[in-house]
Every structure is written in C-alpha cells, then in structure tokens.
C-alpha cells in the first residue's frame, strides 16, 4: 500500500514513475493512493503497475468517482480509504489529512459513508482511525467493530499498531480482513516474519 498523502492537499496526483519503479520489483499485491481524481488518473496508475487504487479525499469531494471507477475497472480494483475521527456526534470522515493545515471535517458520518461507498461499488474499505494513528496503543477496536457491522466488503484496519498483540486483537475482536501498519515496520520495531508467526500461533490464518 503506497500512500502519497500530500498529493490531494497539494492538488496533484501520485508520481507514476515511482509506481512503475516499485511495480517492477514487487511481486505481492500493490495498491496505490494519492490524488486519483478521475478514471484517467486511475488508468495511468494501473498502467504503471499498481493493481488496486485507493481513493479518499477525491471520493468525498466527488462520490460518483467510486461508481465510475468500479464500472470501468471492477469493484475489486477500487479501495475507499476513510480517515475517521471520533466526535461527540459520532465517527466523522476527514479530508486532506496529509496536511495538518488543510485537514478538515467532510461533514460525513463514517458509518453512512461506508454504506454509501459500498453501494457505489467500492470493493474494499481501509479505515484509518485518526485518534489511534501514530499512538501505537492498539487499533480502535470499538470503532472497527461498528464499521465491520455495516461493511460487507473486505475491511482493513489502520491506525494504532504498536505491538504484535494489537494485530491479533484486531483480527479476533473486530474480524477485519487485514491490518495495516507503517511506522512499526519502517523502524523495525516489529519484524514482519515474527509477527506472522505470532499471528499463526494465535490461530489466525496468515501466509508465512
């Protein structure tokens, strides 16, 4: 999963040359996100070697984009990413979160948005719980459970991974299909082979 998180706030699209260089050496699934605002943007990223594209801020700005991408490339190709914040009124979707100065409330309720995105043809949802993102205290299981209850396509948990137990907990308690993490892998705080073995011994099916 490659996120060019500043692409949307900066009004540009993810660098295709970069996608191509990664795709040449990568032999596992490759999903790319960042400022994909049109079917043509998506086609360029797919032609560069990605096999799924993820849209977040552009989908909030133009929900019809989900329908158009799903019709053209199939639901399996279209991931909708959601940056969700707990508020007193419920979970709310945020836009342009790649730039703290531009990050803003989209006005949408997350559970409603998850329902709508699926109805429009999203084939996968990545839920980034902003309150737990970067804190490494574990995934927001309560929120993920609420989204799981309305999400019938694959659901990927994001935000909060700090220890192997956090992964096991989110798979078991929130029944997500995948758990995403970045910083703990980048810093080497969690080694992927060890994590996979720990998950398998916890009874979670994983490819070693």
């Amino acid at each position, binding site marked *: 999963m490659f996120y060019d998180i500043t692409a949307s706030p900066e009004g540009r699209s993810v660098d295709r040359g970069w996608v*191509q260089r990664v*795709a*040449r*050496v990568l*032999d*596992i*699934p*490759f999903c790319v996100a960042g400022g994909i605002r049109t079917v043509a943007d*998506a*086609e360029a990223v*797919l*032609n*560069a*070697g*990605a*096999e*799924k594209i993820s849209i977040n801020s552009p989908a909030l700005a133009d929900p019809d984009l989900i329908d158009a991408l799903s019709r*053209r*490339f*199939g*639901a*399996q*190709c279209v991931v909708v990413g959601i940056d969700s914040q707990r508020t007193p009124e419920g979970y709310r979707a945020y836009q342009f979160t790649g730039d703290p100065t531009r990050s803003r409330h989209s006005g949408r309720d997350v559970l409603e948005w998850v329902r709508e995105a699926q109805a429009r043809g999203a*084939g*996968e949802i990545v839920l980034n719980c902003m309150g737990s993102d970067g804190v490494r205290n574990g995934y927001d299981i309560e929120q993920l459970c609420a989204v799981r209850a309305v*999400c*019938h*396509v*694959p*659901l990927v948990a994001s935000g909060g991974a700090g220890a192997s137990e956090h992964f096991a907990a989110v798979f078991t308690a929130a*029944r997500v*299909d*995948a758990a995403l993490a970045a910083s703990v892998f980048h810093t080497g705080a969690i080694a992927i082979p060890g994590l996979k073995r720990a998950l398998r011994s916890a009874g979670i099916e*994983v*490819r070693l």
Partner: protein
Amino acid sequence: MTDALIIDSGGANLASLQYAFARLGAATRVSAEPDVIAAARRVILPGVGSAADAMRRLRAAGLIGVLTGLTQPLLGICLGMQLLFEHSAEGDVECLGILPQRVYRLQPSPARPVPHMGWNYLQTAKVDPLLEGLGALPYFYFVHGYAAPVGPFTLAPVEYGEPFSAVVRRANFWGVQFHPERSAAAGARVLANFLSL
C-alpha cells in the same frame, strides 16, 4: 523470440504481468492482432474489468475464433480464466465455451466478504506441469467477485467458504483464478512453469 504473447483485452493493468515475466527473464509482447496471437509460442489471456466488457472487446477485435482454435499453451488469468467457461453471470454473457460450466457470483456472508481478496492456499492439486515444484499448501493471491465451480477440468480447487476452481486445464488451455504476478515465489513458479510448456 517472444516467450509469451499477452492479449491486449483493452483493460488496464497489463504492466504488473509484463514486469513479472521480465523478472523471470522472459520476453513478452502485447497485442490484439489475430495473426500475431495465432502465431505466438504461448498466449496469456489476462483480464481486469467485467466479463461482459471483456467478451465485447474480444469479439470486436475478431479474436473469438482465434482463441478457441489455438493449439499452443494458453494461460487465462483471473477474469481471463473465467472467460474460458461457457457463460458468466457477470453481465450474463456467453463466454468462449472452451470449458463447460458457468461462472457464478460469490455470495457474501458475515465471515466471507465479497469481493474475495486475499491469500489462500491450495490444499490439493492434480499432477500437472503448470503446478510443478510448488511444495505443500502453496499460497496464492486472489481478487475476484465471481468464481468457476469445481468440475471435471479442475486441477486444483480452493476454499473460500465454499470450494471453487483455482486452477483449470483442458488440453492446451490452462486457467488460474489467482494472480500469479502478485503471488510472490509460488506465483513466479507457476509463470516459470508456463514458460516451459
């Protein structure tokens, strides 16, 4: 000499397949020309998009008779495998009819979201040159919302709530439901095996 010809079925996403062959040192060419396809050493039928769209594009390119008449090895990947069957529920469309049976829509359940996206292993497989050297329980990456039933031409089933065909073969026509180009070492082995057919 081109090792494998990839049919340009009009969808995007041929790049990851081309890169996978390049990693194996194989030369590929992309074409939708009937003469070029008929003369190829080996043929890949990829597929992204819907069955109805893909069949329309193959028909418009004049490729239906060319494909069903091929005698060299052909490998259908994902939707490309499903197109080998007689019919698909995706757009209610007649397909190439090389394999009997009909492709159906996977039904979601609480424990089984659809599309099916993820790594699943093959529990059993018939002996076949395409599947040589994979070891026990090889994992492959699947991304699909439709599936082909297990039938007489199934080489390996896979289980996702219910069993369906992961690998099929009839004579010189092979098909895989998973994406070998995204299935790490096991996928590379399948592509390498195909190149030695």
